[in-house]
């Protein structure tokens, strides 16, 4: 035990438990609500049941929305990888000075709230050469920008850790072309970092609501929009939905953390 722990361990433990309780309360409330038969105007529910989960998981509209969300998120992540990997390779190998420019550019998706971009996106993609407003394609494009700052930073750190230049020089010496070296040597070395950043990006793309609701809405109902549209339905049903959603995201972040731990 360190001296600090001896000083007032009870106080600090209490604070930590209180913090945990504050963070837990909304989740716990939703969980209990999703499992109760009815719960209104009382402190405790009247009985427990699984029927809301059964109703949810047998609802075709829910399953369709879930599938659409998966499709859009993985589509966006595939696009992001396809665009960001060559970019990172070129920036790190050929034009290291571009990294400074990129670090400013990737601030944009972070600093510009989606609601602002939406105003422009709605006008630009409503008609004209690319009328994709109201289709999943516009979401895939937007989600790429959301994932960009995060993936760029994560993969850059990974690239710096593997000594890209030495690795490429070694591959070149052994007679590999730049393409071959990039695909056969660099890419496999990045695999774990890529997986971690994909899982983590997925967990926040899956919860994205602003673009999904403003740009597409019910025309291609994703999970978050479905959840919002169900707001007038039974609160127990929506609670089961919230808990199911959260459990799924949890599984993704848990997988990412597992992968991350293996690395070190």
């Amino acid at each position: 035990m360190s001296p600090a722990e001896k000083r007032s361990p009870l106080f600090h433990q209490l604070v930590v438990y209180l913090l945990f309780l504050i963070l837990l309360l909304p989740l716990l409330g939703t969980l209990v609500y999703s499992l109760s038969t009815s719960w209104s105007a009382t402190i405790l529910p009247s009985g427990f049941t699984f029927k809301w989960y059964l109703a949810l998981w047998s609802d075709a509209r829910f399953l369709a929305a879930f599938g659409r969300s998966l499709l859009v998120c993985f589509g966006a992540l595939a696009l992001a990888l396809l665009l960001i990997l060559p970019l990172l390779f070129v920036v790190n190998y050929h034009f290291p000075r571009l990294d400074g420019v990129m670090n400013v550019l990737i601030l944009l998706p972070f600093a510009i709230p989606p609601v602002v971009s939406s105003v422009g996106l709605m006008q630009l993609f409503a008609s004209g050469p690319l009328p994709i407003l109201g289709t999943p394609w516009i979401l895939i494009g937007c989600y790429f920008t959301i994932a960009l700052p995060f993936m760029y930073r994560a993969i850059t750190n990974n690239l710096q850790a593997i000594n890209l230049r030495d690795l490429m020089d070694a591959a070149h010496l052994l007679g590999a072309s730049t393409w071959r070296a990039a695909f056969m040597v660099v890419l496999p070395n990045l695999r774990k970092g890529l997986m971690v950043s994909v899982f983590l990006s997925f967990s926040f793309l899956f919860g994205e609501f602003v673009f999904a609701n403003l740009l597409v809405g019910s025309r291609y109902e994703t999970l978050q929009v479905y959840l919002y549209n169900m707001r007038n339905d039974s609160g127990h049903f929506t609670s089961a939905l919230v808990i199911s959603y959260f459990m799924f995201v949890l599984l993704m972040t848990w997988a990412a953390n597992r992968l991350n731990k293996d690395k070190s």
Partner: protein
Amino acid sequence: MKSTISSKGWALLCLVPFALFFFAFQIAPLAWVASNSLNTAEGWGLGNFQQAFSSPFYRQAMRHSLEVAFWSSLFGIVIAIIGSYSLRQVSSRLRDFVMAFSNMTSNFSGVPLAFAFIILLGFNGALTILLKQMGVIEDFNLYSKTGLIVLYTYFQIPLGVLLLYPAFDALREDWRESAELLGASTWQFWRHIGLPVLTPALLGTFVILLANALGAYATVYALTTGNFNILPIRIAAMVSGDIFLDPNMASALAMVLVGLMTLITIVHQWLLRRSYHVAR
């Protein structure tokens, strides 16, 4: 080896798809908003901004945005400071567990969070009833400004802990012991050593929380179905509402929001540079 020009040319070519997508989905929409904010019925000019700053309705939206962002960031960071500090003093098992849980709840935002709060703190929420029966509160309206601040504070806490926890690394335990040996009280230690060392990290975290709250839309939209007058709601209502569409005014309000965010980002970058200076 082939000529370097051609290999660099190929390399540049690899950047084209990225540049196209980034332009289409990030730069172009922003440019549209920026230019159309200056587009009024009478031609180009600052008319939209004049209207935005003179209308009591839009001014209220801005004030609400700033108030909710400021108070939720302040409460969020205070809870995160106390929490992070205590987290460092407990056993590693408890710490790892609560840290992991806190990171997990950072995904709990937007629509699901609003629903959870309605269940807990709505008019018939379990916690509202409990607190009423205990006589702690007389009435609580989740759908008001106070309610929003409580809700926003909740989603600020995990982010605050995530950002602040590492910052306490800068505060070495032996400084505390030295200060104590020299006769400093706990208050004196924090006043003269602890807080000054942590200030850049605290301010940096605070501005990130501010930005996080200013741009938030999903939570307040789901909670009040767009009936609370706050900047992101106003902007969205003018491009997607069914009654009154005004993309140019929406652009002007969006630029006000962007202006606030830019200010925050610049301050953050500046603080970041200073904090490296201190960390060394």
